[in-house]
């Protein structure tokens, strides 16, 4: 409940403070000056509010004086209910309500949330820790400047109180002593409250009181209106100078002159309409879009990623909804209340126009498609928002201008907002219905996940069952592990060469797409399930996808091997894919019952593995606070035009000065930890009791994460190494990606040692494989060519293979491979001519000789392919490679659908 009111009333202000402060601090780089400027800005922005509050107070006093005699008379002459009822009538006849008496304490009341916002901001600002300014040693603690014997006395709070009292006395110059008494009490309360607070906060409040004093002195000389005008002008000039914006002053001067010449005409226009209903409807709709629709849209695309240790996706949604309710409705209504009638009319028109603008930005000039992390940073850190076609721009400008003309026409000509209200109401209902839909989608995913988790925990199962006496074939699938990293990693960690003894590394391996949905099927299905084959075939995409998952497990099963899939793609897709695929999508793919029907063992490792990690290693699980904060910014970003998005996005930092370096994050998400723990505890998940040949597929997504780990061991730690210099360039998320790749190989390396120790290494064939590479990886020579970066690395999955009894040194084979070779590698020398159980065709890798087709782009959601037989069209571009991929001449890139047809 407290959190709700905090989010509603204080949080919006706090975020505004933070935004202003971080911007000012970035420019000035001087903490005291920044506090000074922040205080000035806040004082000036609050000025109209305070002055209006003063005005209301005067009005209230006047009314009360006017009503007092009769009220007194009624109170004297009547008793009980009659007195109450007569007073009520008397107030009613004078258009007054006793609740309006609250206005008397309005200016004081207004200070409370503003104070709380400043208080909560400065007392939690990590930036201040150890930061000194002038005579103050540490801004994060009380100043303690005066030392008398053993007592340290804080000077700033006392100074602040003096200024506060001064300001109060100037203000209440002509007023009664009782009001002065209140002022003294309030000042003393602030003294007590702030005495032991961080000195930065006290300094902020000192400046605030100083401005308040100046304001009160000024008010003795000039009128309220002029004071507001002058101080806004100062603020405006300050802004223009700091932001080096010289166009704005010209615009303002232009408006000033226009007003001078045409002001009379403008004032004579009589536009009277029901602006109150328009405003209310407008802000409610704004709230539904910003507070409900956009956040739920973001979260519903991958609900489970938003399961934090401290909250569910709903915690995040409710926090965002409340913050926007506060910012838009609560403070919006205040603003409206304080505005004059003309301003109220302009505000309501403004809200309408903003609504159109926001919807157009949201739906027409959409944010380009890339992966978004739960911290709301895009995977490509330097995001390019300016991606739109001329058609979009034309549409955008025309919709906005037509709507504005329409709105103004309705208001000025008909002086009625009926039709506008109807439009807004329809948008309101639609967006609300959509939000409810999103919420229900999220709820179904989260609840089914929770029930699954619970069921899994109760199962307590040995997951990987290998045989000491028979043969084992083990496929370790690691999502987005990058082949090209291997030399770098093995160079940095020579011990791996020993651990991976017997393995063959295939550097020239390609995948068929840059994402899991089209990169995965060929791994277990072979060349019959490459994207082009799926496009060509007569079957529906989902049918083929479904088949591909079980081709290899079925072949082994049919030959009486014990066949097991761990973290299966069907049913619990998200654990493998990390691709924002929802439970609905999985159901649509039709995987339910897939493994049951074919009698293949399938287990999913429950999230409880993390608890071991938390206990054993003292790992801190990421909390949702950063996500909550950044989701608010991201929502705002979504309704802004592309050019403004850069500014808000701030390289994924969203003006968070406590988080200048996102790399400084030793706290991990649950989702990451689960994948890490699975590999770390592979030994604990394994038994050697099986008395049959075994075939096991183990799916894991650790390398898919971008995460800095503890150097040089690349394990989890609460500390970060400042002097870390990894062997990859700092482009996008490459360094973070490198970190998780190293961790993956090291953890698997430890598991290999464990297998050796238990004598199951030689009778086990192990294939470590990924589904695709990663874009924008800058590698050292000789792999640092632009061609390699753009065309090879994104499609360069890891492929490491160790055969039965192999004990040669770790070696490299430059043969041209694809991850569709896995079925042949897995079955080699075991089954003579393995046949696809679905098509009855003999499996082989002959087609590789004719070259392979790689799908470009990033259409990774199942919805693009579901229900289709031919899954591509002219929107898709392709690469074609024949023979050694190291030679750019063997590549034909950026081919369209018609051209690529020639190659298969």
């Amino acid at each position: 409940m407290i959190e709700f009111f905090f989010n509603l009333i204080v949080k919006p202000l706090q975020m505004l403070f933070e935004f202003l402060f971080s911007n000012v601090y970035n420019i000035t780089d001087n903490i005291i000056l920044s506090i000074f400027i922040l205080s000035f800005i806040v004082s000036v922005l609050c000025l109209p509010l305070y002055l209006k509050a003063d005005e209301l107070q005067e009005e209230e006093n006047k009314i009360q004086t006017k009503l007092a005699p009769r009220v007194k008379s009624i109170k004297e002459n009547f008793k009980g209910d009659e007195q109450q009822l007569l007073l009520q009538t008397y107030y009613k006849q004078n258009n007054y309500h006793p609740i309006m008496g609250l206005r008397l304490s309005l200016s004081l009341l207004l200070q409370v949330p503003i104070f709380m916002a400043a208080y909560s901001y400065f007392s939690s600002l990590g930036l201040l820790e150890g930061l000194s300014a002038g005579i103050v040693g540490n801004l994060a603690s009380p100043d303690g400047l005066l030392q008398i014997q053993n007592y340290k006395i804080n000077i700033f709070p006392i100074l602040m109180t003096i200024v506060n009292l001064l300001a109060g006395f100037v203000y209440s110059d002509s007023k009664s002593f009782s009001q002065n008494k209140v002022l003294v009490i309030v000042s003393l309360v602030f003294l007590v409250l702030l005495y032991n607070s961080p000195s930065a906060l006290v300094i902020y409040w000192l400046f605030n009181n100083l401005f308040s004093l100046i304001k009160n002195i000024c008010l003795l000389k000039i009128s309220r209106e002029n004071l507001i005008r002058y101080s806004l002008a100062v603020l405006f000039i300050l802004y223009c100078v700091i932001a080096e914006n010289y166009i704005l002053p010209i615009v303002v001067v232009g408006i000033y002159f226009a007003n001078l010449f045409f002001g009379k005409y403008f004032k004579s226009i009589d536009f009277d309409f029901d602006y109150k209903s328009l405003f209310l409807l407008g802000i409610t709709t704004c709230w539904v879009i910003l507070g409900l629709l956009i956040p739920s849209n973001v979260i519903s695309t991958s609900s489970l990623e938003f399961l934090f240790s401290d909250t569910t996706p709903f915690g995040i949604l409710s926090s965002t909804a409340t913050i926007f309710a506060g910012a838009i409705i609560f403070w919006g209504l205040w603003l409206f209340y304080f505005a004059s009638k003309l301003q109220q009319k302009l505000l309501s028109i403004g809200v309408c126009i903003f609504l159109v603008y926001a919807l157009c930005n949201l739906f027409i000039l959409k944010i380009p498609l890339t992966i978004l992390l739960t911290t709301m940073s895009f995977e490509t850190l330097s995001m390019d928002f300016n991606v739109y076609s001329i058609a979009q721009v034309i549409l955008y400008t025309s919709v906005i201008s037509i709507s504005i003309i329409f709105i103004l026409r309705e208001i000025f000509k008909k002086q009625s907002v009926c039709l506008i209200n109807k439009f807004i109401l329809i948008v309101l209902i639609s967006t609300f219905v959509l939000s409810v839909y999103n919420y229900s989608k999220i709820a179904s995913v989260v609840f089914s996940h929770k029930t699954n988790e619970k069921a899994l925990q109760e199962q307590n199962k040995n997951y990987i069952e290998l045989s000491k006496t028979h043969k084992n074939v083990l496929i370790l699938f690691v999502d987005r592990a990058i082949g090209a990293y291997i030399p770098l990693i093995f160079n940095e960690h020579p011990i791996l060469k020993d651990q991976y003894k017997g393995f063959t590394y295939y550097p020239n391996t390609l995948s068929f797409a840059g994402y899991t949905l089209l990169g995965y099927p060929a791994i277990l299905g072979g060349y019959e399930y490459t994207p082009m084959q799926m496009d060509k075939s007569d079957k529906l995409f989902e049918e083929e996808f479904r088949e591909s998952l079980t081709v290899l497990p079925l072949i082994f099963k049919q030959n009486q091997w014990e066949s097991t899939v761990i973290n299966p793609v069907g049913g619990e897709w998200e654990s493998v894919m990390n691709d924002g695929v929802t439970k609905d999508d999985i159901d649509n793919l039709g995987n339910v019952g897939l493994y049951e029907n074919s009698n293949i063992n399938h287990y999913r490792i429950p999230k409880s593995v993390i608890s071991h990690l938390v206990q054993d290693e003292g790992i801190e699980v990421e909390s949702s606070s950063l996500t909550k904060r950044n989701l608010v910014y991201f929502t705002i970003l979504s309704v802004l035009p592309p050019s403004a998005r850069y500014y808000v996005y701030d390289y994924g930092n969203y003006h968070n000065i406590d988080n200048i370096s996102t790399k400084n994050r030793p706290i991990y998400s649950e989702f990451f930890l689960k994948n890490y723990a699975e590999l770390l505890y592979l030994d604990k998940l394994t038994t050697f009791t099986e008395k049959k040949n075994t075939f096991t597929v183990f799916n894991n997504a650790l390398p898919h994460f971008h995460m800095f780990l503890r150097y040089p061991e690349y394990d989890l730690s609460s500390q970060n190494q400042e002097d870390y210099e990894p062997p990859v360039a700092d482009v996008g998320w490459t360094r973070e990606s490198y970190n998780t790749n190293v961790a993956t190989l090291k953890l698997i390396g430890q598991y290999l040692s464990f297998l050796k120790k238990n004598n199951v290494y030689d009778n086990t064939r192990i294939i470590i494989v990924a589904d695709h590479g990663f874009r924008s990886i800058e590698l050292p020579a000789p792999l640092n060519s632009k061609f390699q970066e753009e065309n090879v690395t994104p499609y360069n999955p890891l492929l490491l293979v160790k055969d039965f009894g192999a004990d040669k040194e770790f070696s490299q084979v430059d043969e041209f491979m694809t991850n569709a070779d896995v079925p042949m590698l897995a079955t080699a020398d075991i089954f003579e001519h393995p046949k696809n159980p679905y098509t009855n065709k003999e499996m082989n890798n002959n087609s590789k000789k004719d070259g392979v087709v790689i799908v470009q782009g990033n259409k990774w959601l199942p919805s693009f392919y579901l229900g289709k037989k031919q899954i591509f069209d002219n929107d898709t571009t392709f690469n074609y490679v024949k023979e050694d991929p190291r030679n750019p001449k063997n590549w034909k890139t950026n081919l369209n659908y018609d051209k690529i047809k020639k190659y298969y």
Partner: protein
Amino acid sequence: MFGHVLFIIFILILLTSQPAYAYIDPGTGSMLFSVVLCSVTTLYFLLNSLIIKIKTKLFSEKSLAKVKHKFVIYSEGKQYYTVFKPILDEFEKRNIVVSYYTSAQDDPVLVENYEYVQKEYIGSDNKAFFKLAFLKADVCLMTTPQLDVLQLKRSKEVKHYSHIMHSIGFSMLYRLFSLDYYDSVLCDAEYQIPMIREIEQKRNLPAKELKIVGSSYLDYCMENLPQRNSPDNFCILIAPSWGAHSLLTKFGEKLLDELVNSTSYDIVVRPHPQSMLVEKDLIENLKNKYIDCTRLKWDFSANNLQVMANSDILISDFSGIMLDYAFLFKKPFLYVDTKINYEMYDFCDLDEEIPCKHRIANEIGKKLDIDNGDVENIVEIINQVKQDENLSEKIEKASDYTWFYKGDAAKNIVDFLVEKQLEVSEK
């Protein structure tokens, strides 16, 4: 038209916008958005027309039929019998159905034989107020002041509330906000109109409809004026109000002593009905004190007309009885001016200094100055008043000023109500 074209364009745009395909992308909802938008639009218009249909159906057939009353008259107590009786008779005469609600279980109207008057006892106090708050009627006539101020609230289903005076000489000496929320006031005479208007203006209230109709209860009394049925011995009627400042409480003993000891007149004391409820001891004490005096009688009868007819002079303290006495029987009265706290009354908002009623009383009657020995001189004063030759002229003048349309009140009232009912039912 322009709006509709724009709307269609808007929907088309949303329909044509491409589906998004990011891992997490706020735009993924856009396809869905357009679908929902379309359906909501359709639903909105469908619902709208449905609501209008339902509304017209409900109001045309059912809810209108539910309005049972054209006319409702509410009587707070049986003391208002004289006010309403002539009006009810008039309705009956004209064959117009009227509903009569009363809060007095022993209301004489309840036992009258009416064909067109539907009588009902609706309980008193809160029970009655509750019923009246949900009343459905075109026109409702009441004597109760402070409608919508105290517990008696206006019903939203009553189209017109009309107030009728229950005593002659009304001069805003009702408690605060008495008439403010009535739609119309039926006045006794012209002089009341400026007072009501002055209050309206000062309180920024909408102007009420003010109709001069006369006084139904005086008409009734006039018609039912009893003959004197007592000996011709000069008889003094003492009919005070009640409470701490009333004549009987303050000077009762003194006055009675003087009258019993210094005169040979017959004396009838008629305490206010409320006195018997709240100050019974006082009455009992007085009764016991003069138990031996045969000239002093106590009257507790329901109808005060007979006792008025049987007397020759009235001593009172501004209970409504004085002007009735003068106008009906053309006899003099003496009164004690108990100090009234005007702040409790609407009168305090008027510019006038003395209520009209007091002025009139002062013109016809004689004010007793208790503090200056008027009680001691009571016999002398009575003799003076008895000999006033201009008395009937003065009474005539006052009566013409405060009481219009003598004998026609019921007709005027029903005329007004019928006209009003027609007017509001047409709206």
